[in-house]
């Protein structure tokens, strides 16, 4: 825990002595009864990297983390730190730091003793332990609270104690299991910055589990999107945001409009799809020929108003729900044939109005996969997508944006 700083970004020299070069998950599987919740997860994590596992609840991300921590035995596969196999070790011999969703602070110990617990278990001399605890508490800006009990702290302070407790042992790997999901929105943003700052200054390899794509995008060097225990895509935030591999990942990356349509033609990397009473042209994904497809559009990519002459993908929609979000309006509208559609605009629209909207064809993604229309929604504030295929959303659901 020195003042060593390491450059942000995915490519980073091993920052610490005792640091490993690679953590390798090799076909890690876990079943509960008959259900395969994690199906052959292959992942290579470089030392110092910040990797986020992203997916809705039940996608296997927490299972993966618990397998890494040693809290759950694997049903198959292996975990390797460089050439050392760790999945056969009990959690206390792996030496990974873990931050839990519910903080899991020891309620009967002061903040200082909580943070010092791992050092005490390692038999670190009292003097040194005290110095390191003080340093860790200073790092999370909790030095004045050292002698309080966790119950006397706010949620955000408690989570900072939990983070200090995990990093004070200078673990080769820090595991974070939705550490911000119990905090309110403003605090979550602050803590996100704090976690990023700690990672940049300490360079601790981190695996971070979340269902919040915004958190994942802003924190991680690399994202792993999981669905029902299967990896959907691995890549940098930019790669995933720019070119999601399938409608499911697109849904997580803000493509809240996922339409089931049929490809009728295309040229030069673009395809045209019909259905739902409209026709849309967009960027053709891998394997798009003719036939059923999923068309993905972000709400903020719609333009509202009188379309210019060269406007692409002009459609007419009926406005149903309008939410005021300050800079812009979140609108739920409906296509003539009943399909719901979400858009964000700074143009004033009214409920009941029929407006013309258009979207540049480079902002429309067309996927050959027509089956994966509806990823499960995360909690409302996360902005995770919900199903748009059914055309039966209520106003309450629309407020999820």
């Amino acid at each position, binding site marked *: 825990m020195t003042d060593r700083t390491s450059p942000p970004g995915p490519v980073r020299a091993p920052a610490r002595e005792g640091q490993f070069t690679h953590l390798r998950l090799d076909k890690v599987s876990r079943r509960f009864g008959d259900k395969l919740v994690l199906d052959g997860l292959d992942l290579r994590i470089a030392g110092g990297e910040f990797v986020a596992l992203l997916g809705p609840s039940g996608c296997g991300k927490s299972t993966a983390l618990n397998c890494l921590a040693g809290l759950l035995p694997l049903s198959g596969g292996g975990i390797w730190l460089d050439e050392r196999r760790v999945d056969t070790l009990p*959690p206390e011999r792996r030496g990974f730091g873990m931050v839990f969703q519910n903080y899991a602070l020891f309620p009967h110990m002061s903040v200082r003793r909580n943070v010092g617990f791992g050092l005490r278990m390692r038999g670190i001399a009292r003097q040194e332990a005290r110095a390191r605890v003080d340093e860790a508490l200073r790092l999370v800006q909790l030095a004045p609270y050292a002698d309080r009990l966790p119950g006397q702290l706010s949620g955000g302070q408690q989570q900072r104690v939990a983070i200090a407790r995990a990093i004070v042992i200078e673990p080769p790997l820090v595991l974070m299991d939705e550490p911000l999901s119990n905090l309110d929105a403003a605090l979550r943003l602050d803590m996100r910055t704090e976690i990023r700052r700690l990672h940049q200054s300490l360079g601790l390899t981190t695996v971070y589990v979340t269902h919040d794509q915004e958190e994942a995008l802003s924190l991680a060097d690399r994202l792993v999107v999981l669905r029902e225990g299967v990896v959907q895509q691995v890549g940098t935030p930019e790669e995933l945001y720019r070119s999601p591999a399938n409608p499911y990942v697109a849904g997580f990356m803000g493509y809240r409009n996922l339409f089931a349509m049929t490809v009728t033609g295309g040229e030069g990397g673009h395809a045209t799809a019909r259905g739902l009473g409209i026709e849309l042209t967009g960027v053709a994904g891998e394997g798009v020929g003719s036939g059923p497809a999923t068309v993905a559009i972000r709400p903020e990519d719609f333009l509202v108003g009188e379309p210019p002459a060269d406007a692409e993908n002009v459609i007419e929609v009926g406005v149903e729900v309008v939410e005021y979000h300050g800079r812009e309006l979140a609108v739920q509208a409906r296509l003539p044939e009943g399909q719901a559609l979400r858009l964000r605009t700074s143009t004033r629209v009214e409920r009941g109005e029929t407006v013309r909207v258009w979207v540049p064809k480079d902002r429309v993604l067309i996927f050959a996969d027509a089956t994966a229309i509806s990823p499960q929604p995360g909690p409302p504030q996360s902005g995770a997508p919900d199903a748009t295929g059914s055309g039966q959303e209520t106003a309450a659901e629309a407020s999820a944006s």
Partner: protein
Amino acid sequence: MTPVTSASTSPAPNPPAPTAERSGGTGRPALSHRLAERGIDRTLLLLLPGLVFLILLFIYPFVYGLGLSFQPMHGSGALYNYQKFFSDPYERDTIWITLKIGLPAALINVLASVPIAYRLRGRVRGKRALTTALVIPITLGTVLTAIGMIEYFSGTGWLNKILIALHITDIDHPVPLLHNYWGVMLSLLVSGFPFAFLLTLSYLSGIDPSLESAAATLGAGWWQRFRDIVFPLLAPGLAMTFCLNFVLAFSVFPSAVLLGDPERSTHVISIAAYDAAYQEYDYSKASAIAMVMAAVMLIVISIVLFARGRLYRGSSGGKG
């Protein structure tokens, strides 16, 4: 109940007092709201049955007995019964005899329940079956258990037959486990353990399992996790469990008679009170002995609860 919640619950239909509902409706909303602010509303009626029982079955008999104990049948002075009790070694020693049985029995029950409950705290295969088996002794009652123990532990019982067959002892010297201290002790263990186990198990499941996971990731092995995390959080519950078990053991009566040596080594205090009441027909003396018994229990419980007060007793983050 906080004023806020009682205020919000008061307008809701209230099954115990359907007639009162009408008067609270339009007539005097201001008064009912004012009362609700102070936590007074119809839900207080729910306390009534308990209060009636408490007064009729505990407070009145207790006060009556206390008064009776100061009105001795023989001798003079209000404290005669107490002076007599403490000056007669045969009577006085019942306190030590009972403590010598009750304290170890309660302690053993609590200590034995901890590892078993700890092992069974999570989801364990066969937990229901094991719990049921451990709880059966409660449902059988003391007397049936005592009869069974007489069959099993007597000089010609199964246990001694097995020990003789194994040449651990011989037919002339069976292991004496009946009609002495050990008979009563064993009976208290059989009947008290299920209580201790069930209580300990519920206290343990109130401790958030992620605390142990956190300790494990920080390098604590199972013993350190138990010593530093689980035990300190469990200790207040164990103190309560000990108190309840001790009260049960201290008032032991049937098994002290059936399995013990009620004239000598297991002449417990409840037998002394029974003898006074139904052998000597001296209810005043019996009341005095009962008061001594209550005082001893109170002292022990106070000591334990005082010690418990010094432990951490806040939330242990559990889901109950």
